[in-house]
């Protein structure tokens, strides 16, 4: 059984089932040498008291802004800097 979501995390719970834009705190991340600003979008499919999960998880790489990662991705809330409800098809400047 999942823990109930505590009131402090309701700000995330509100996003459950919605698509969001999410940015984490570091300058850049790196998968196999491809670096990117940690900007993601996708649908929130899971909210716990410690992390949220996007599925599909789109990594907004600067050279491939609509790259759908092969697995869902989870984000520790403590590492999230910014999120907002977001149309995943929107094209936004990334660099």
């Amino acid at each position: 059984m999942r823990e109930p979501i505590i009131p402090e995390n309701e700000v995330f719970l509100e996003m459950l089932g919605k698509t969001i834009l999410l940015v984490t705190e570091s300058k850049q991340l790196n998968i196999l040498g491809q670096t990117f600003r940690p900007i993601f979008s996708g649908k929130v499919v899971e909210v716990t008291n410690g992390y949220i999960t996007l599925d599909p998880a789109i990594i907004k790489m600067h050279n491939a802004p609509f790259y759908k990662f092969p697995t869902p991705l989870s984000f520790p809330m403590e590492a999230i800097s910014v999120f907002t409800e977001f149309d995943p098809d929107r094209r936004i400047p990334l660099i």
Partner: protein
Amino acid sequence: MIRKYHIVAIPIRIVVNRFGDHDPNGMMYVLKENEDIVKKKVELNPFSTVDLVEPLVIRANVGDTIEILFENQLPFNTGIHIQNAEYDVMTSDGAFVGLNRNTTVQPGKSIIYKWSVDFEGINFFSDLGNPLSSELGSNVHGLFGALFVEPRGSWWTDPVTGKPINSGVFADVHNPLLPSYREFGWFFHDEMEVDDLTGQKPISPHTLQPEATHLINYRSEPMRNRLRLIQEGVVCPDCEGEEVHHDSWVFGDPDTPILRAYVGDPIKIRLVHGGTKETHSFHYHLHQWLFEMNDSDSEIVDVQAISPQNQYTVSPAYGAGSLQGAFGDAIIHCHLYPHFGEGMWGMQRTFNTLQDGSMCYPNGVQIKALQPLPDRPLPPKPTLEKPGFPNFIPGIPGFKAPRPPLGIIGGRKPTEIEKNQFAPNAVPGAVFVNPTTDETPIREFHVVLIQMPIVYNNEGWYDPEGRLYVLAEDEEAVRSGKKKPEPLVIRANAGEAIRFKFTNKLPETIGGNAFQLVTRTYEAGMHVHFVKFDVLVSDGANVGWNYDSSVLSGETIEYQWFADVELKSTFWHDHLFANEHQLHGVFSSINIEPRGSYYLNPYTGEEMNSGTQAMIINPLIPDFREINLFVHDFALLFDKDDKPLNPPPFPSSPDDPGVMAVNYRNEPIQFRLKEPHCDPAYVFSSWVHGDPVTPLLETYNGDPVRVRLIQGAQEESHSFNLHRQRWHRERGDLDSELDQQQHIVIAETFTLEFNMEGEGDFDMLYHFGSVDDIWLGNWGIFRSFGKRVPHLKPLPDREQLPLREKPLPKKTGKVPPLVSQSEFEYPKNAKVRKYDVVALNTKIEYNDYGDHDPFGIVFALEKDVDAILSGKLNPEPLIIRANVGEFVEIKLMNCLKDIDHHNGRHGYPEVPVEAFFPPSNRISMHAQLLVYDVRHSDGATVGFNCDQTIGPGECITYSWYIDQPIGSVNLWDMADIRNHRHHGAFGMLITEPRGSQYLNHKTRKEVETGSQVIISTPLLPEFREFSLLMHDGVRLVDKNGKLIIDPQPLFVIDEEFPDFEDQGSRGFNYRNERFSNRIKKFNEVYKVFSSRVFGDPSTPLFLAYPGDPVVIRFTFPADKPRAHSFAVHGHIFHRSKDDINSSLISVEGQNTVGSNDNFHLLYGAGGLFSKPGDYMYRSGNIRWDIELGLWGIMRVLRNRKNLLAPLKMNKWKQNNTLNYQLDRKNLNSKKFQKKGRVKITSRRSYKRKIIKQNRATSTPKHQNRDEGVQS
């Protein structure tokens, strides 16, 4: 994973286009499996291009080992030398260097090379068995290729068939964890010997003279062939030539590469310079990318300068079509217009519908299938209503592309099929894609392009056919002379849409003089960089199957640009007749400023719509001053008596005609000699001559400044240098290096941001540093005031300054007073390092064969002067050092004897528009990048500063402060750029870490100077420091006193007359090792680097032990505009020493006057595997540097020798090091066996086990590793 490739070097006829232009003596690397097929196909198609004839590209993944069986079928020794990879220099260098074994291959023989690769990117490879510069060499004929390294776990397929491939310049690359991308190899290639169909040198039908050919991937689509079809009436009889050069409606698609993708496809262009000579300007329409692909703070660029053997990955932001998802053809070209015209262009074709092979282009040629990338949405299928690009465009094959719908005032109506394709928010100028919304703020301009005479200086040099963009509202004022002509600079803020009306008011022809034949230039447009636009209708160009988005004389068209983010200055120009008239001034900028900015005239304080100088006011960031500097060559000027200045050999020749300028102004120093002394030491002095006519930036001390640097025209490299002020190489990246110099090619733009540091009133020189540039007047002054002056408005957010009471200085016509030499005041406890330096004339021996400069001018430590003058010491350039936090005092004494080879007319090495210019007997020393007071320690007599040069017998002291770990810094004389610098009047200062000691590499005794020292620092590892000053423009005589005229290639006679920029000999630290002194026969060329055969070269021989930390300090102090690459074999380093996210490279390009760099070799001497052996350092310019002696050796010694003291704290024992060459995978697995971790069941037991294990093995990890290796 081990990948094996069998590569063969073969002779092959290379046909470069369907017109039959070809290299009969082509050479290429090819996979053995394709060798017979290629040979057969070429035999069957002697006059057509053959697909498999392309530079060899093989691929591997990060972490792979690559085993190459290399077979040589050429009639001389060849090899494969690879960059960026790890390899054993003894077995896999692909060269025959120093004391190494020969790893080139005789005709008919083979060898095995082994490489391993650790990071994604490009590993260029080429032949060093025959590095001759002429047509006898191998590289000019195509003997190069590349290994592309992909992310781990990748595989690659053919973009047409979807099948796996083993080689090929284009591939789709797939990876389980990363987006699939389209990979396009793009190999620039120059100087190839290309004949026309008949075997003759190709003739331009325009000039009726022979013409060169510039290539991409062994293909070229020069204008000359297409022009002939027009002249013969085969196509488009009413066309002129250049305006349709890239028009597929007229000619069909070119034979040069077409990079095909669907909208949004991720792309990596692997940009490689396989050529030998030129520094090219890669420009990609519509798209931008990060300069450093792996650094998200990196600068956004859309032009990349690239020198020979250099490489860059270009991965455009947002994929094909950029942010706005544009479709259509985006041309990719070398922006150097002569190269562009001579065939160096291709394009990116972005489709918006699925291509399965069933569709045709409008001319009936099949559109080959293009496999959609598997992780991308499927593009829609073409339908009759929406056939997709290019089939909705209503053009007629054989005729010029149609004009765009909506944009042209009074133009045609769109067709129904065009309308079906319109974007929902279509507006004129953004018809098929429009990234703006209803809320986007809009800024409007009406621009006109006009022709009028432009006078460039007070001597009356002028361009009778000056052409420039002006705002319609200013046209009258500019034409009437009320407003001085300057390149148009307009501004907009980030987030705005900029809408233009553009009216073409040019006359329909140009030329008809010594510079240019009469040519029609009847249409024009505005092609812009950086901003987001619809490439079909707002490219301001005529490319591929797009519309021709230009207008005829008298017509007006509308364009829309969207500035999505703040950008630096953004270049725009005409793209229709650029070769003919951009050099007359057709270049401009739109500066995209921070949101919320407005722009004030710095002299009136009023809001302004255009101008090269402005104050940018913003509520959130500090206000700043902005100046745009457009550097310009091929300026086709006449003197006041209508004599052409530096006319070409024949009209319309691309052979470096004309002069140079900054913002349509120049101040040639030949006119700044004052009778009776005519001393070059005062050419920059405003006391003597008044201020130059070139742009003068005025500021108050402490003002923030952004210099927007652009090259507007036309072919040369330039090197911007500024005294005293420094900026970050990439403005948005504070990890990027501090610079004071910037190499620039046409269409590049840079923002140089700094605070105007200094006290009192002072003038600073900016100059484009080559002798040709300065000679022709590419220099000017930045002036800063300590107190408020009446004519210059202060920035609104700065504190009020006290008013200046003294009058401003004025020209007196007299030599300024010598700077007052009071004692310098230093903070208490400051460490001041003092050097007594003497400037003297001396003979410099450049090599052991007697080549020497009898009129050398050197800076030397006073203690070495006697040894130099008595011939005991052959001087090296002065190399001095100081630690961060220290002050440096240079006491300079002038012992020049007033001798030179001439009394006023210098001659070889020549400059354009040669004139009387006697040598100065004064001298000075200027330092880059250090902190000092410009008023007394700049080493230049500039503007209204006092004299900082000294006459014979005089002394001067300069004081500099080392505030930063900058590394190598150029030192040079500023008293006589024309006559002193190329004779050796330069040196290097190196800033070292705090607390460093400088030790002799053999004795470990402290030293004051030297190119090879040990730097010992308490908190850092000791390292070896190797210092190299690369220089050119040298005037040497041989042992018999005969003048050496360089470049003169070996074994051929008078191949071509060298440009001014190439004249003179080359050197590393006043030394060279010319091929001509070592080899006498062609078949000896592979041995030329061998010390076994010829002894060690005269260039510096650097020594190290395996694994020793090594830093190479590199500067380029003199003299010519030609840019050079610098390469080190078998080692890699970060492109920016301070930026760990910068690329790993083994070749640094674009080195020119004022370049300074620091190469911290990764893993130390001998690379990752600490391999002993001889590693060549060299220029990457096969034409002509290497042959003229720009190469040397870094020797990594196997055993301890008396000639080299070991570094302290180097824990590698030599034996261990030699054994430390095993397969890294083995190393890992052995370690794991040793560790033998036990499966843990619970957290507590885990903890216990850890503790237990730690007790059992108390030795540190790296020692375990050693034991593991030894066991």
